[in-house]
């Protein structure tokens, strides 16, 4: 039907309504037609009976001439409406015996003799009132011999047809519209109910994200017509999940493959005794280790969204991370401290991911703060945590870029790959947390993170 109607329900309803309308019209039309047919044949019979009646009252008078002698009730009936019911009776010679009006007598005088088979006719705009007549002419036997009888009735006054139609309209037709309305309602409701599982499937579909790739659309209760689509979508999801699994496996494999040789290189370097060259080499390998870890971290965050719904004790986590990085700070002739609230504070998130973020921020701070200074990690009372250094700070024009992958500030020692802060940003995003970059007083940079409290 219409291409513009997108709603299946509306379309079905509209089409059904049209169908019902056409069907009702046909039914009513058919009824009227057959009613008028019935009425017509009833009228024809009536005319025939009248003709027979008239013939019965024709008899020969004392002069031997045929004459019509109607009983008083009939006579009254005919004379009451002389233009309504007309008749003319002729003998076989064509002589007019009797006519209800002179006009009909004059008219029939020109007509051929009637046959024993009734012949029906119509006369248009006849008589003084110019009405249409339908009638029958038939040859009948009477006591006065064979007669040619013509009886006609003015049409438009066919009471019988009107009565039948009126009865039909009042007795039958009135319940067609309510029936149509009820049928439409049932159709609309059943379509709506049939589409409910599709709505459920839609709700399920909108819940599917990288973190919940295992979800599938429910196939139970889905209408048979929509089932192929749902199954096809689920198959597509299967293939996508496979892709995800391959990607994850690749990440894990790459991790293993890269880490093992790096561990071996690190171990071999440890076994060597040597000069400053060796120390430089070790430093380089350490940098490579860190780069590999960061790349894997990025790949992991890209392929799998971490589950960020667990309660995490921010203070305890900060204590662990700071503690585990203290020797790194000392090795670089810097120190690190944890300040702020000295009690547990719960936020909602993923402990490993938040620890990763803190580690990257602390590494960053240690790389930028001056020798002999302290990097301060401060846990706030409201799910916030800040990392402060006393380095050169971050110029305002660089701030929009520092969280981009592989971005490095100008004039900064080329120690990192520019992934640390990108990882931090990914983790912050995954947590629906916030991060801001500020200045420290008197100098240095300060990163403020705020997590959702549990």
């Amino acid at each position, binding site marked *: 039907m219409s291409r513009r109607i997108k709603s299946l329900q509306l379309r079905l309803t509209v089409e059904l309504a049209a169908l019902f309308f056409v069907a009702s019209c046909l039914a009513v039309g058919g009824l009227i037609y057959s009613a008028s047919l019935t009425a017509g044949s009833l009228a024809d019979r009536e005319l025939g009976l009248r003709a027979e009646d008239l013939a019965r009252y024709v008899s020969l008078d004392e002069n031997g001439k045929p004459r019509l002698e109607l009983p008083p009730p009939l006579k009254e009936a005919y004379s009451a409406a002389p233009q309504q019911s007309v008749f003319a009776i002729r003998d076989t010679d064509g002589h007019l015996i009797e006519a209800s009006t002179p006009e009909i007598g004059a008219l029939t005088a020109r007509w051929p003799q009637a046959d024993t088979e009734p012949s029906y006719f119509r006369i248009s705009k006849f008589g003084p009132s110019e009405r249409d007549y339908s009638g029958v002419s038939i040859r009948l036997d009477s006591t006065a011999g064979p007669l040619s009888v013509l009886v006609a009735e003015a049409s438009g006054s066919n009471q019988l047809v009107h009565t039948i139609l009126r009865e039909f309209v009042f007795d039958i037709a009135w319940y067609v519209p309510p029936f149509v309305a009820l049928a439409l309602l049932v159709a609309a409701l059943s379509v709506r109910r049939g589409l409910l599982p599709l709505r459920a499937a839609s709700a399920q579909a909108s819940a599917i994200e990288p973190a919940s790739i295992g979800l599938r659309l429910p196939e139970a209760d889905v209408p048979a017509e929509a089932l192929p689509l749902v199954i096809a979508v689920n198959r597509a999801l299967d293939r996508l999940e496979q892709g995800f699994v391959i990607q994850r496996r690749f990440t894990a494999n790459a991790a293993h493959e890269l880490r093992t040789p790096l561990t071996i290189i690190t171990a*071999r370097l*440890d076994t060597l005794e040597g000069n400053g060259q060796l120390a430089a080499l070790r430093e380089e390998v350490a940098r490579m280790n860190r780069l590999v870890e960061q790349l894997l971290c990025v790949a992991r965050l890209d392929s799998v969204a971490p589950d960020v719904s667990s309660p995490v004790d921010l203070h305890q986590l900060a204590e662990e991370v700071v*503690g585990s990085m*203290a020797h790194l700070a000392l090795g670089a002739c810097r*120190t690190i401290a944890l*300040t702020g609230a000295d009690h547990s504070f719960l936020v909602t998130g993923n*402990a490993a991911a938040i620890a990763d973020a803190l580690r990257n921020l602390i590494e960053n701070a240690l790389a930028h703060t001056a020798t002999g200074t*302290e990097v301060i990690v401060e846990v706030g009372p409201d799910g916030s945590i800040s990392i402060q250094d006393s380095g050169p700070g971050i110029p305002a024009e660089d701030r929009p870029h520092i969280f981009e992958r592989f971005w490095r500030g100008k004039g900064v020692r080329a120690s990192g790959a520019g992934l640390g802060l990108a990882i931090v940003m990914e983790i912050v995003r995954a947590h629906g947390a916030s991060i801001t970059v500020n200045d420290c007083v008197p100098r240095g940079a300060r990163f403020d993170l705020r997590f959702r409290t549990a």
Partner: protein
Amino acid sequence: MRLLVIEDEDRLSGILKSKLGDTGFTVDIARSAADASAALELINYDAAILDLGLPDGDGLAVLTAARRAGKGLPILILTARDAVEDRVAGLNAGADDYLTKPFAIAELIARIKALLRRPGGVLGMTLEAGNVRLDTVARELTIGGIPARLSRRELAILEQMMRRFGRIVPKAVLEEKLYGIDEEPDSNPIPVHIHHVRRQLETAGASLLIHTIRGVGYILAETKA
């Protein structure tokens, strides 16, 4: 002392064997979980190093089986850094310590020694770091070969720090240790004790230094040459 290294990567286990051998350990290598379980069954090792990612199954299963069999030896697990769940599961299953790959061999040796020094461990008697030696049974301390004196509490602090040499010792751990020493009420807070130990080490010319990590704890490290 005999160690079991459970590691499927031959090059890594080779290096571990040679380096740990240099340190004075006898090292056996197991390449699979099955080998490891068999070896642990046969020989009473002093400690084990277990890579959780083994080809023929879960390293965790080896750990669980050993503990279920009543093996109390210290076990250090090796995991990937991102495998936090593995690490936690390992520690829960009875591992004593963990290291994330890649690690420095020196770190691994220090950790193994620290595990062996734990009460009940093979190296439980004498702790050594830099030029400082502490006999944990006789409670005798020598710095650069010369006997030094510390109060009982300060000695306990130093012992804890030497057991976790190079690693953070949380304040809470020290407090706990001091609390258990005797019933005497101790008015001095931890920082005062640390201050005393630090001064003692310095005046005796120790090659060790106690670093304060504010808000977390302390680290004992060698002074920079």
